[in-house]
């Protein structure tokens, strides 16, 4: 299990500055004749946690994929500190997907593999693997096949793997959706800690409480449009948009 008294300091510091602001200009993504992302104009300049919220099918996961460069926009563009995404920037990003993708290897080998792809070798690699397993509370499972872990354990492993890469931008797609409340809180501490170490966190969540605890600013997405973008305090106390208000009240927004 996760060790609640585990020290939450990560390893190493960030030397490269964050590629901020992130500017989305008329960002559009079409699939099957449908505008999944419909001309989003947005500037994210907070170097802390940005939360993306919105109902199912709003386009949150697609937006993260676009930001991470996994898919190319149909129209519009994304600028990172004034320049387009390039391999050097991508290498400093990491993503935790909505559905955990784990290799058919042991828990430790999953982390080790990812580090190997980033060219991290030798003692540093084993040290980071050990650190990641400690953060995920999975030390005893180091040799367990990753795919026999429980859903929540798999999510924690995916997050630990992403953190072990020491990215400067971290995308998370509902990383606590199958975690028990205690584990979710620990993940939140990990994310706050990551942010304090200078990692830009972009988090998709449906958990309003979590968003309130973590967010510096919130983007509300609906039908592929960013209908609201505010700092967290005003977003939660005084949402401008009727749909946002309904969503936060727990009402159905369609």
């Amino acid at each position, binding site marked *: 299990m996760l060790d609640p008294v585990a020290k939450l300091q990560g390893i190493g510091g960030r030397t490269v500055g964050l590629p901020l602001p992130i500017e989305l200009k008329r960002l559009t993504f079409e699939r099957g004749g449908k505008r999944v992302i419909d001309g989003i104009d947005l500037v994210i300049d907070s170097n802390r946690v940005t939360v993306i919220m919105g109902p199912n099918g709003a386009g949150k996961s697609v937006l993260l994929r676009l930001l991470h460069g996994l898919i190319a926009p149909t129209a519009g563009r994304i600028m990172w500190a004034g320049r387009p995404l390039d391999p050097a920037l991508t290498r400093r990003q990491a993503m935790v*997907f909505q559905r955990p993708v784990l*290799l058919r290897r042991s828990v430790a080998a999953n982390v080790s593999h990812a580090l190997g*792809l980033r060219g991290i070798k030798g003692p540093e690699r084993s040290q980071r693997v050990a650190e990641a397993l400690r953060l995920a509370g999975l030390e005893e499972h180091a040799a367990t096949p990753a795919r026999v872990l429980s859903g929540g354990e798999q999510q924690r492993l995916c997050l630990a793997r992403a953190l072990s890469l020491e990215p400067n931008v971290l995308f998370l797609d509902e990383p606590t959706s199958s975690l028990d409340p205690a584990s979710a809180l620990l993940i939140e501490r990990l994310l706050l800690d990551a942010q304090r170490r200078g990692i830009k966190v972009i988090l998709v969540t449906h958990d309003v409480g979590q968003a309130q605890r973590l967010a510096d600013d919130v983007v509300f997405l609906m039908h592929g449009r960013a209908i609201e973008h505010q700092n967290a305090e005003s977003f939660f106390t005084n949402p401008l948009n009727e749909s946002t208000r309904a969503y936060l009240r727990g009402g159905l927004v369609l």
Partner: protein
Amino acid sequence: MADFIDAFQTALGLIVTLNHDLVEILLLSLKVSLTAVVIASVLGFAIGGALAVVRFPGRGAVSAILSALMGLPPVVAGLFVYLLLSNAGPLGVLQLLYTPTAMIIAQVVLVTPIIGALTRQACEDLLEEYDEQLRSLGASPTATIVTLLWDGRYRLITAVLAGFGRAIAEVGAVMIVGGNIDHVTRTMTTAIALETSKGNIALALALGLVLLTIAFAVNAALVSVQRLAKRLAYA
């Protein structure tokens, strides 16, 4: 019937006493087919992995041809290698015809498409699941292929076993390019064919029993590999 029982007893005798001819033939068969399968595995893994990962024009066609070649009749593989190695052929100067090397080449031609096509399928299935994660991690095409081959290892083992089963049991290819020369290129299958037609049922039967045992062993190995993979959630 009495003849048959007689032959059967002689056959068992040959096996139990480790008859010299029988062992020689068995060892040559194993040497040829195992060598061929090792070479075909290296080729098949590389071809199958690359076909799954690397996009290039004509990729679909190459995959389709590779799959079709899984059913290549052994005699046709043999004929093809015969033409290559015969005196008039492009590789005639090597003087390889009627040597164990020729038989290995013929079996490589026969088995590579089997291992290659099964590898491609295994890697493609995995890639569907891993693609975005691997791209997110910044994996190069080579690193992606290596990852897929390793994660598909249990399916690759079954592909190799299937290839070995095919190689050890085929007669057409080794017959044409090997020539079934006593003490040189006589394998289990060519010996069975020859000894049966000569009326030497006992040796044929003994070799047949050995071959059958190998086939059962390969199949048992296949089943246990699949079971292990499932248990570890690696399937």
